[in-house]
């Protein structure tokens, strides 16, 4: 027996902000959960199992937060799982939840991912000096900036491509009421004029630090029949690789390439750029858009920036990327991957509001984490998969 069909019938998210001091972690999760359940026309009592994800515990200083959250998440008397894959966790959490339905174990699974960055300092948490080592680490930006420089050198991309991505995503975010940043008037020129933080990454080319949560309701075929617009899961893939192997390609990681190839095969897609109508790709620093376009197979190696520069990743382009504003406009780290997955579902459900791509039938949700070490991605569609 193969996989059982599974669909997303509820998507909920919080209004993402720098500080959500009005809610606790539990309250933040429930805000997203309650919206997802209302969207699915279900209640917590209808849910069979809950899968929760968040980024590393040090970010908020709560060891195993699922313990104290269990009651608020409605998990009493039900299975509760936590997934943990650094920044990709929102994506892999959704995949674990969907696998419970696809395996026929549960019919209605709730999944939620969150981060309350205002309670801590992720830059500090990522840069704790270790004995014997050289204290040159400087957060996620410090980690990824050298690899962005490598991409620019390898691809010979013009240096303003990163600014094109940032201006596009910030402008898209103006159409998303939940987005953290609503920066009117962001242009390539204003991005290029912003402060250089981790050269070659400028301030406006980095993601914000956000409080927020995202929740999805993933159900079996029978339950999905009651939904007017289920987003059917056409493929899910996770891949990992070693962080520090010699000659590891940090610009175009093998695990990401392998994951994408497996994903397209599962979903029956042979030409991603023509067959995917909208993509939500994990882009915390603007240059990762062209890098992941290549890694995912939307462009040949070295050509990703040409799609970006030609405007093909804009909402009216050949492959609209991050119509929601993406991670560059909202980054509650643990939830950021699930937001990509949820926004992909909204697109094929025709429920993305002002940032809807007209007639989107198949969409990609993508997340990565660690030192480009973990990859999680899915394809969702408006039609039930034929395979």
């Amino acid at each position: 027996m193969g996989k059982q069909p599974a669909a997303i019938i509820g998507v909920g998210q919080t209004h993402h902000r720098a500080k959500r001091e009005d809610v606790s972690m539990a309250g933040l999760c429930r805000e997203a959960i309650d919206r997802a359940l209302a969207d699915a026309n279900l209640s917590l009592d209808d849910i069979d199992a809950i899968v929760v994800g968040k980024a590393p515990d040090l970010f908020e200083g709560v060891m195993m937060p699922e313990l104290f959250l269990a009651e608020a998440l409605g998990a009493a008397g039900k299975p509760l799982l936590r997934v943990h894959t650094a920044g990709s966790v929102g994506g892999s959490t959704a995949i674990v939840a969907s696998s419970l339905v696809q395996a026929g174990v549960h019919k209605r699974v709730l999944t939620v991912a969150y981060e309350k960055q205002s309670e801590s300092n992720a830059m500090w948490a990522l840069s704790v000096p270790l004995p014997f080592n050289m204290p040159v680490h400087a957060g996620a930006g410090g980690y990824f900036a050298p690899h962005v420089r490598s991409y620019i050198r390898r691809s010979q991309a013009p240096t303003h491509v990163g600014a094109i991505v940032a201006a596009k995503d910030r402008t898209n975010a103006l159409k998303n009421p939940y987005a953290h940043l609503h920066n009117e008037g962001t242009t390539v020129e204003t991005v290029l004029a912003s402060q250089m933080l981790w050269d070659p990454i400028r301030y406006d080319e980095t993601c914000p630090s956000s409080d927020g949560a995202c929740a999805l309701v993933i159900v079996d075929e029978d339950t999905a029949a009651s939904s007017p617009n289920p987003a059917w899961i056409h493929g899910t893939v996770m891949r990992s690789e070693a962080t520090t192997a010699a000659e590891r390609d940090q610009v175009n990681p093998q695990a990401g390439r392998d994951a994408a190839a497996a994903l397209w095969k599962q979903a029956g897609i042979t030409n991603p750029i023509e067959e995917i109508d909208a993509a939500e790709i994990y882009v915390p620093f603007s240059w990762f858009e062209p890098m992941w376009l290549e890694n995912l197979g939307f462009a040949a190696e070295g050509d990703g920036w040409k799609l970006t520069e030609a405007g093909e990743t804009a909402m009216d382009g050949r492959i609209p990327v991050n119509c929601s504003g993406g991670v560059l406009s909202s980054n509650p780290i643990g939830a950021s991957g699930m937001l990509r997955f949820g926004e992909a579902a909204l697109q094929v459900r025709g429920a993305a509001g002002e940032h809807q791509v007209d007639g989107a039938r198949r969409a990609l949700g993508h997340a990565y984490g660690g030192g480009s070490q973990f990859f999680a991605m899915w394809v969702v569609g408006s039609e039930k998969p034929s395979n």
Partner: protein
Amino acid sequence: MSRTLQAPVTVAFDYTRSTGPVIGRFFSGLRDGVVIGGRTSAGEVVVPPLEFDPVTHEPTTDFVEVSSVGTVTSWTWVPEPVKAQPFDRPFAFALVTLDGATAPLLHALDVTSPEDVSTGMRVRVRWAAERTGAITDIACFEPLAPGEASTGSTNEASSQVVEPVETPVTGVVVPVSLDYDYAASPEESLFYRGLNEGKIMGQRCPTCQKVYVPPRSACPADGTPTEEEVELSQTGTITTFCIVNVPFLGQKITPPYVSAYVLLDGADIAVLHLILGVPAEEVRMGMRVKAVWKPKEEWTFSLENIDHFAPTGDPDADFDTYKHHL
């Protein structure tokens, strides 16, 4: 000499918790010298109040003031308190069901020996001298004095609905500090001991022949244990780098500084280090650099013995020689 090197690490941060309206109401009560419980849909009165009802899953909105006097329902003795516990002398942790509540609250009980505590004994809140809106506003519980009235300031309070406070507590600061000993692996210890002698040591994987610096114990690519020691050149090539302009909490080097991957000659993986001796804007991919050591009397067992890498002045390395290390 021990086979491995160890050093103490402290990871500490003052986390700023948002309480939300329910726990915030409880903390507001403590600040104001009263204990607030929450009534559930089943009629239970729980202290602290549950954020969401266990049956209906709705947010708790029905708050009641309970007594500061209650009954011990269970307890345990703490013969040897550890750091940051409520007392630095032996004490009890007790579950206390306050009058007017139906579920117990866990807190410290100030008694001098286990003979002084029993299930069913009557205790009351001892308030902290200064109250800020945190669980520590209750310093501890203490036994009622013999003959003392067994009710607190609030009688059968659970029927009494409390009003919202004017200035609710919305957050608490929670300092967390974790002390542990960082233990380097035997292979890393080889590397750090080498640095103490002015050498940069790596290991070669017997399967794929790649030279790792620092050595990893097992090759990350194929899992083979690494044994053959290789002393590396102190000269190498900058593969890629960034210029850190951003200050952040806990930073050890004042920005701006160049953080670069240096591929030492003979190594197959780059090490991250600091570049000095050249203006940041003149640092290039492919630039040839050499280790500049601190004065020998400052050496420890650390990569910090190398103060920085500085340009050798030689022509840049050809891109093809390091492109597989990006």
